[in-house]
């Protein structure tokens, strides 16, 4: 039987359907539930994804209003029990504002922030583009354990507030956490724009929790889960796509292993 996954739709979410599609393709019995979900229904799921979008129109700060909802208390308790939780884009912002990532010492205290995009501290506004990333310390998280540190992956970003800011406590343990970082097409972690598109500390694009069962990522893995979603200019992945179109075969996209790893963890451990 497939593990059950809930994509939690907030008022203003806009990526819930493509997220469900990616999760369903790679092993989940996935459904969309609303932010008002009751406790009994919530507890029926093994894993949860907070999708991208603009919950509450990004009022006050992106993700902060949604982070106060009762469903985030449910999620905090689920995280404590070891259930899997993935926050993508606005979902990443919500997890940060709720203190669920990186959850140092098991506490839900706010210790990372997603600030406004900037280039040398000058505001750059909303960014919509494909970027390259690589994974560091992949084995420290359920979500990244199938990736290798040497791999370079294309992935789309769509955000105005995606600049990771860390507390000193998180800085101290950063090398032990699984992280996704912006890099060049050759894999160089260059801190300058446009390789680092938003001024993130340490080029961060995503970060796992200390326990490894929660992950917050600003780029959109669900939009690079199928090879057909990748642009033809995306190096090896683009060439694979063209080859697939020529031969009529379609392989998994660069971010399929994230969803496969989640499902495998729940079925095989």
């Amino acid at each position: 039987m497939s593990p059950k996954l809930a994509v939690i739709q907030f008022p203003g979410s806009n990526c819930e359907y493509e997220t469900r599609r990616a999760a369903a393709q790679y092993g989940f019995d996935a459904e969309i539930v609303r932010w008002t979900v009751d406790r009994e229904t919530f507890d029926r799921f093994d894993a949860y994804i907070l999708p991208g979008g603009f919950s509450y129109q990004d009022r006050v700060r992106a993700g902060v209003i949604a982070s106060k909802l009762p469903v985030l208390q449910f999620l905090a308790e689920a995280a404590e029990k070891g259930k899997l939780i993935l926050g993508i884009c606005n979902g990443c912002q919500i997890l940060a504002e709720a203190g669920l990532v990186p959850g140092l010492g098991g506490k839900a205290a706010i210790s990372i922030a997603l600030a406004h995009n900037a280039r040398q501290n000058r505001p750059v506004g909303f960014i919509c583009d494909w970027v390259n990333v690589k994974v560091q310390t992949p084995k420290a998280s359920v979500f990244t354990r199938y990736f290798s540190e040497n791999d370079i992956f294309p992935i789309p970003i769509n955000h105005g507030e995606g600049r990771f800011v860390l507390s000193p406590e998180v800085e101290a343990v950063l090398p032990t956490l699984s992280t996704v970082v912006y890099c060049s097409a050759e894999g160089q972690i260059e801190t300058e724009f446009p390789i680092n598109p938003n001024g993130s500390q340490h080029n961060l694009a995503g970060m796992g929790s200390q326990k490894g069962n929660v992950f917050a990522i600003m780029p959109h893995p669900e939009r690079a889960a199928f090879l057909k979603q990748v642009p033809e200019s995306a190096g090896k992945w683009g060439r694979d796509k063209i080859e697939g179109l020529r031969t009529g075969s379609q392989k998994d996209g660069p971010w399929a292993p994230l969803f496969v790893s989640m499902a495998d963890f729940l079925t095989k451990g």
Partner: protein
Amino acid sequence: MSVVSVYTMLKNTDLHSLSAQEAIHEMMAYPSLVSLRRFGLWEVTLASSGDAALNEVQQIIDQSYYLLNPNKEHYFISNLPATPTSSAHVRFLIKVTNRLLQPDYDAIIEKIEKRVGVKVNALSYYLLWEVVVDRRNLSDTALRAEVEKKVIASADRAHGILINPLYETMSFLEPAYAG
């Protein structure tokens, strides 16, 4: 030399304040919040002072959109009128600085001079929250500490919403006063 403050606010409903107020009441269990409003605050430094400085700021507002858009924003120069409140309420004004962003004020100053002919020496912009709370026989100091902890500085899901201390700093504008 003088610094003139220009307070701006939306003419229609400010959804940021509305959602924050609802979250504070309904989700953060802090019923003592009476009202919440959000302003923009420009601090315009001019070589002139007194009425001459006020006239120059008025001239900038009348002849350009660089500080605000009067079609959709109200504005107040120098003084922010008090919200009508009873003596049972206390108002706090919280000035917020985003310490990571440095907007290109020099470019705005240059445009103002070119379009309006007014020389601005320096310009800065802040967010300003007006928080009105029930006094409940608490001292100003106790209320201020309570507001900072429960309403302003985000620490966890239950505490704070208006600023994120990881990249924003805040200061209370004096004095806190009853209506």
